[in-house]
Structure formats: C-alpha cells, structure tokens
C-alpha cells in the first residue's frame, strides 16, 4: 500500500535532492522535490505528504528546522526527517524537540533509510486503516470525503462549508448516484449539529400512511398494531438533521404536513392530540426537476419554496469526467482494503474505458464497476479485460434504457408504445405486458392514454 503515499525531498543541492528522490521513486513512492524551505512550505500548503526529508542547512530564508516548524503548523501529524552532513548533539536535540521524527547524518546506510521509511509508512497505513474503519462504523463523513477537482463541485463544497452551520433548509438536486446523501452528511457533520443525530428517510420506499407514521410517529392504539407510542424520525432528529431523500415522490397530503413542520417546527404524532415541537434542520433531495413538477401541479409551490432556501444542484459524473481517475483511485484503495487484497493499480487502457463510458448511474455505478473489477481481478493490475462488462453491445440497441424517468413515467411510456405497436388491441397488449385486461384498463385511465 505504498504507492499512495507521497514523499517530499527538500534540499538546495540538486544532485542530493534528485538522487534521493529517484531512489525513493524506485521503491514505488510518488516523490516531489523542493529547492528551498519556502517552496516546500508552499507545496505543503496545497497538500500533505507522508514523509518530509529536509536538509538542515539551506541558504536564504528558512533553514531545515524552520521549514519543519512551518510544515508542522500546517500538518501537525507530518513525519519529518532532518538530514545533515555534520552531526552535532545540539542540532539533533533541537530537531527532535521541535518534532522531527528522525535526525540522520549523510551518507547513510541504505538499509537504515529503507527501514526508517517503511516503519513510518507502516504507522501511516495503520492510521489510515483505523480512519477507514472508524468512518465505516460511524458513517461520520465530512466534505473532505468528497473527492473532486471539478470547478462546480469545488464551488458546491465552498457553499457546503458556508451553510453547514445554519438551520436553513437545503434542497439537493441531482441524478441518482451523484452523491446527494454524501453532501447531506457533509452538511450535517461539518456544522454545529454534528454531535446530534443525522436521520435519513427514503420517501420513495414507503407508502403514504407508512411514511406518515415513520416521519411523525404514532400514539398507542392509533391504528391496528400500534401497541405502544412510537417516536417518528422528526423527533429522533431533534437537535440534529433529517435527510428526506426522494422528496419529489411524496403524496399531496404529506406535502401539506411537511409544509406545516417546516413553517412551525411543530407536528402531531399519528393519532395524537398533543403537539410535538422539534428543532430539526431539513435537508431534502430529489432526482426530479421539482420546479417543473410545481409547474405541472404535481408538487406544492409553497413547499418547494420552503425547501429550496439553499439549492445545491449536483452535476452528473459525465459532466465531471476529470474526477474519474481520482474517484477510481479512492475506490480501489478502499475496496482492495475491504477485500483484503494487495493494492491494485489501474492500467492506462482500463482508465480510458472508464473515461469514455457515460455513467448513467453516476458515481455509484462507477464505484460498483470498480468493486466488481477488483473482486474478479486475479492480477495485481486492473486492465481493460476487467471492465469488459462496460462495453456497449456490438449491435445497436432497439431502445435506450431511460435513466431520467420515474417508474410511473416509464410505465406510461411502455404501455403507450405497446398499445401503438399492437394497434390498440387490448387483449394482446395486456398479454405482452403480462398484466390482465382490467389492470390495463385502469392504467390507460390513470395515465389518460389514447388508443390508436
């Protein structure tokens, strides 16, 4: 797992700097060099390195110890190795007191350096493993977990930082798999509410009545099976955040109930007479165009404006393809770790396939594709053949699977197309669709379909 660790070599002497960097690169590390303390500090401001090799004596500006102190201010956990040609007890003591991990005198035995580097990397690997496991356990994500160099995503992350501490309602809009929940978690865990609950509800997964009791809870005896009082998600999220995923799918009754909670922060449990007051931040997400749904009368405009206080539109992966290599690297590292496999790299050819693919399922589909490739890969490198399942079929498809429709919209289109093909023959259409005639009549009525 060493290739993901980056090392910085800081020395004003070119041969010294470049030869040490080349020697470390042969060991598989990514190595950057800096000609002065000032340059090293500038680089460290942009990114942290696993190990900093810093020469003690450098002319002009920062010497080795000063450079280390500045880097330690930026990254208190940085591992710094101070290099010197002349060992004196005083400088060694100063270096160690200021936080150097090691103080070595050049020339140094190659075995000594190899062992020192691998010892530090071993600790870094354990720290990272610990962090991955803890994150997995607590799902405590911050905006640092969102990997991107795309300008739009970076703007969104700035916005997330700005609004994390507020109580204002946020509406996240994006296609399926673009990371809406990750943004919601980042908003919660970066703000003042991080210590309280983050409660997640998928509105599309439940029927209207179930969703109502799920959100607002119920009183004992309010319906058959309600044997005890139960708190709803809004109460469970008191002091924290509730994340309402797929908000575009809720019924008009629930839209009204929700509007009231957003306005008054008060509600009744199902079957209850006593008002419950909560302090909850609402983050809603949808893959639909809610503004359009409002225009079509499918979504209440007053609720839309209440939800849409802060609007975060997430771009699909095909519009931020420059992030694919970064995302893939992160997924390989995590998945290989979870699978207990030796870390795998990805060949240029395989990456090209991933860059050329359209990713209708967005980041989630990419993650699943990488997982499938890592699991089935028998070699230490992911190659084109591991992603052959992504190839488009050689024969053109008769139709493309729609990826922006709700199930209802898709159902409507399929019924209409089948009816047209069979020239309005109800019996045959019902047979082809695998439903009975009465169901087909109901659906024709429901969707207001015309028979050719």
């Amino acid at each position: 797992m060493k290739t993901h660790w980056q090392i910085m070599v800081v020395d004003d002497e070119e041969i010294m700097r470049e030869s040490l960097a080349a020697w470390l690169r042969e060991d598989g590390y990514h190595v950057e060099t800096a000609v002065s303390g000032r340059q090293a500090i500038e680089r460290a401001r942009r990114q942290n390195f696993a190990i900093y090799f810093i020469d003690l004596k450098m002319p002009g500006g920062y010497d080795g110890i000063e450079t280390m102190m500045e880097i330690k201010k930026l990254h208190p956990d940085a591992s710094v190795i101070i290099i010197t040609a002349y060992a004196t007890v005083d400088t060694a003591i100063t270096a160690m007191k200021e936080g150097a991990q090691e103080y070595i005198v050049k020339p140094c035995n190659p075995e000594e350096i190899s062992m020192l580097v691998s010892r530090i990397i071993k600790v870094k690997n354990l720290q990272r493993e610990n962090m991955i496991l803890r994150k997995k356990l607590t799902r405590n994500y911050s905006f640092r977990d969102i990997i991107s160099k795309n300008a739009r995503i970076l703007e969104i992350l700035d916005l997330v930082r700005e609004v994390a501490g507020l109580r204002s309602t946020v509406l996240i809009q994006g296609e399926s798999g673009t990371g809406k929940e990750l943004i919601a978690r980042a908003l919660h865990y970066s703000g003042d509410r991080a210590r309280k609950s983050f409660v997640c509800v998928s509105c599309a997964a439940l029927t209207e009545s179930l969703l109502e009791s799920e959100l607002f809870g119920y009183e004992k005896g309010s319906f058959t099976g309600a044997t005890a009082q139960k708190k709803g998600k809004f109460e469970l999220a008191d002091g924290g955040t509730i994340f309402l995923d797929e908000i575009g799918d809720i019924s008009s009754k629930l839209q009204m109930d929700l509007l009231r909670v957003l306005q008054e922060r008060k509600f009744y449990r199902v079957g209850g007479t006593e008002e419950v007051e909560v302090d909850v931040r609402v983050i809603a997400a949808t893959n639909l165009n809610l503004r359009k749904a409002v225009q079509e009368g499918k979504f209440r405009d007053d609720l839309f404006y209440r939800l849409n206080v802060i609007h975060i539109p997430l771009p699909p992966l095909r519009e931020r393809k420059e992030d694919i290599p970064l995302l893939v690297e992160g997924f390989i590292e995590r998945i290989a770790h979870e699978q207990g496999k030796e870390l795998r790299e990805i060949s240029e050819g395989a990456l090209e396939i991933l860059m050329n693919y359209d990713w209708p399922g967005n980041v989630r589909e990419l993650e699943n594709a990488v997982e499938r490739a890592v699991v089935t890969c028998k070699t230490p490198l992911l190659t084109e053949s591991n992603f052959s399942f992504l190839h488009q079929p050689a024969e053109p498809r008769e139709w493309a699977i729609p990826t922006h429709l709700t199930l209802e919209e898709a159902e409507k289109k399929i019924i209409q197309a089948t009816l047209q093909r069979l020239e309005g023959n109800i019996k045959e259409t019902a047979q082809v669709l695998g439903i009975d005639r009465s169901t087909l009549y109901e659906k024709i009525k429901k969707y207001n379909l015309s028979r050719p």
Partner: protein
Amino acid sequence: MKTIYLIPFGAADEEIFASVELSLWHSFGWEVRRLPALEEPGFAFEPQRRQYSSVLILRMLQSVFPADALRLLGVTEGDLFIPMLSFVFGQAQLNGGLALISLARLRQTFYGLAENNAVTAARAVKEATHEIGHTFGLTHCLDAGCPMSLSNTIWQVDRKREELCPKCAFLLQEMPAWKSQSRP
C-alpha cells in the same frame, strides 16, 4: 531494430558480460549488444569517499546513447554512491533510457573472500535485470526472490532468482514504457 546496449567501463570481464547479455535477452526479449569499452570514469571519482558518483556517470552515459538504443546499461568496477547513501549497487532512470550497475560490491573479494567469477556473474545478472526493469517502469517488488525486490545488502542480492516473478513479468507487459515499444 532497437537494442539494449551494454557499455563496460574498463576491460570487460567476458564471463560476467556474456551471462548478463544472455539473461537480459531472455528476460526482456530485445536484442542485446555490447559497445566498445570506455575508460574507468575518473571524472565521477570523489576522493573523500573513494567512490564514484552514479549521478555523474548516468549524465555522461546520456551523451553516448546510440541512436538505435532502446536502453543503455553501464557496467563499472567502481563502487557507486549517491550523496544521501553510503553506496548503491546500481541506479537507473525510472521510465528512462539509462541504467548503471557496479560490480565492486558484487565480488566476493569485497567481503574478504576468494574471487568467484560465477558468483559475481550471477549477482550481476540480477542487478542488471533489476535496473533495466526500472527503466521500463517497474518499481520494487515485495517478493524477496524476485530480481525487482530491493536489495541493500549482498545477502539480499543472493536470495533473489534470476527471472522476474510472475507478477512483475505481467506488470512489465502493461507498463506504458514497454507498450510504447514495438516487440521484436
């Protein structure tokens, strides 16, 4: 046709060079040829350390790189160093054209033992394969028996095999530096 060239500094020890040439051809599949010997690299000698700077020798090799060369491997009897380390067995440009090995620490005499040319030749084969592997982009292998594993001591060289391990042999085929060359 592109060729891996060997260039001796000083008189070439026939047994060692023949072994290295055969082995590189076997491992990498390119034609391997030997260039006329150059003088010992006095220009890179560092009197205080009584060693030769591998960086300076590599820079010089750049100036004699033949037009039809795929790779150029210098072989010297001089003990090599880089400023940070007390010695190196060899050095290469990762994904580059140049490599260099020293026979000094591969000889039994360095360790106070009687000279054994067959042992030196076997060690030279492993170090030459190691450095040429770097020029094609391979980094150190965790299999201690693979010639691409890191060796800081002579016993680490001795425990290596002469052939690349299956993992490195596979990775070599996938390296951009390897793929960009048409196979012989």
